[in-house]
């Protein structure tokens, strides 16, 4: 195991080999649309969306320690706002506000971030269990209101989003969306990396470990919670907007469903909460589970997911990443915020 020896304090993600692995992974992903079938491309695109959801939820929950159960709201609002902009007529908006998909996706993410900016100072008056349930309730309110506003959302039947980014015969709309999603995923990962390695990441870990102690040392808890919340919501919104324009169909019942929160949570728990690389492993495993499991256990796949997160959080709180790291490196490092 000598080639994997490293000095304590050096984390796996800082390793050159891992960076090289990242480049290889991106290159491998970049050829996916040209080498595989449309359905496999779609599957991997979904995996990228899962990575974005996982990475963004992990920033808020794993690093800043704020267990939000409302992530789906930001995913869904990103999807809806961008869909209103690319397909204004379907929601009764004037054609003049129509934007190209790329711009609409960005506006979707920005809107999700703005929503979090407005509700953050209010919802962060709650902490712990109250915060978790408060965010769950908030997401439920948003879902119910959107479901009721049939004029804006199409109600339970939803509506089709228009958009065609195909380039000639060779590159289909799905392929283009795949590249956009890949780029967005890279940006999400890079931005999160910079944040958690920087002073803001330290602040988040400090309030996660002991909010009172951090506060008495001059760390403003609200500032770092808001930082994590807004960034996390922004990327969740982008993920929703991209996914909505890949499927070209949105529906308040599914786009804003608690499922997206569950998925984010499962991905992060399986991968390793509060570890940077965790959500990648988690998203890969979740993608396999989500698609492979139904073949093995039939309709019981979400029960199996539930059992897995229970077992992981009790017996393996550092997730798959922790397992792999323990296997590769003897010394454990403390650069990642632990889950405990």
């Amino acid at each position, binding site marked *: 195991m000598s080639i994997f020896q490293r000095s304590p304090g050096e984390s796996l993600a800082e390793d050159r080999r891992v960076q090289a692995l990242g480049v290889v992974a991106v290159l491998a992903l970049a050829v996916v649309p040209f080498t595989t079938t449309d359905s496999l491309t779609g599957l991997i695109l979904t995996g990228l969306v899962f990575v974005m959801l996982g990475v963004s939820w992990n920033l808020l929950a794993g690093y800043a320690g704020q267990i939000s159960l409302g992530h789906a709201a930001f995913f869904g609002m990103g999807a809806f706002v961008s869909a209103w902009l690319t397909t204004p007529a379907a929601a009764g908006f004037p054609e003049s506000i129509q934007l190209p998909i790329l711009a609409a996706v960005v506006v979707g993410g920005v809107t999700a971030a703005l929503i979090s900016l407005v509700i953050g100072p209010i919802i962060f008056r*709650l902490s*712990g269990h109250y915060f*978790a349930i408060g965010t*769950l309730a908030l997401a439920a309110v948003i879902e119910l209101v959107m479901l009721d506003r049939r004029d804006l959302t199409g109600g339970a039947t939803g509506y089709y989003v228009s958009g065609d980014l195909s380039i000639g015969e060779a590159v289909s709309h799905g392929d283009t969306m795949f590249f956009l999603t890949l780029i967005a995923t890279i940006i999400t990962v890079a931005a999160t990396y910079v944040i958690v390695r920087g002073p803001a990441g330290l602040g988040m870990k400090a309030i996660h470990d002991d909010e009172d102690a951090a506060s008495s040392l001059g760390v403003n808890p609200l500032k770092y919670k808001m930082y994590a919340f807004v960034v996390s919501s922004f990327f969740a919104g982008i993920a929703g907007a991209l996914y909505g324009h890949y499927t070209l169909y949105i529906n308040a019942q599914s786009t804003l469903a608690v499922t997206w929160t569950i998925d984010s949570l499962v991905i992060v728990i399986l991968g390793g909460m509060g570890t940077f690389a965790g959500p990648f492993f988690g998203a890969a495993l979740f993608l396999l589970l989500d698609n492979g499991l139904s073949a093995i256990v039939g*309709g019981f796949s979400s*029960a199996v*997911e539930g*059992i897995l997160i229970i077992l992981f959080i009790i017996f393996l709180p550092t997730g798959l990443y922790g397992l792999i790291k323990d296997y590769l490196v003897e010394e454990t490092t403390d650069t990642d915020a632990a889950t405990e």
Partner: protein
Amino acid sequence: MVASDLLTQSVVNGLLLGGIYALAALGLSLVFGIMDIVNLAHGHMLMVGAYVAILVFTATGITPLVGMLLAMALMFGLGVLLQKVLLKHVVDEGLEQPIIVLFGLALVLQNLGRVILGGDARTADIGIPGNGFDIGIAFMSFPRTVTFVVAVLLIVATWAFLQYTKTGQAIRATAQNRTAAKYMGIDTDQIYVITLGIGTALAGAAGALLSMLFPIDPYVGWSYLLKTFAVVVLGGVGSVVGTLVGGLVLGVSENLGALYLGGGYRNVVSLLIFLGVLLVKPEGLFGSSGGGE
């Protein structure tokens, strides 16, 4: 403008429904107050209790009130098992692990409900036939009245248990100060087991009662979790009287919300009340904060 008889009828129905909400919330409040855990699977346990009553009724024709007792016994067992097998590893170990364990359990229960019983809504609403009666200002439907009375009886029974039995006193002592209770010779691990058992049994009872009024499907768990937590927040953690009042307030405001804003806003009203109280007065309208910070 809504006619005044419709208004009083809404209020009366809301009060009757609120009794069941209070019963469901009492279980959640008990567990929260004593173990400092929000049972995120509470709504799903309620759903399971409802299905037990529905299945017993449709299979045998036995009144769902008997099914309710069976549901309570089963859910007590589930709660005991849950604490002994899973939660004992994570209780008192910070915030994240219990939340996620119970979230996972909610997923499991919802999935099992959907696969085993199908996604369609079911009900045992013809389980307690009987004629309602008029009290002048409003009509008292028979099932609503019966379920309300049973719910209130169960709340009183739980209160008396906590107040007057030795186990009840030990539970309250543990809620006040776990370490001190331990020094006094109370087996606090056992108290946790009993508490979770009671908490889930009450969820099962409330579910069974609701199944006699409304259709239940496997997805109702989240919505009832939020409703019951709203009652806990309204009433204050650990206050039996507060929980009862909170339940009645929620039941009435939901019905009024549905009356004035339309049925689609029934749940929105309760959630907004919940968020409002949580933000303005997090310790609840009654009682003191039960922790969770």
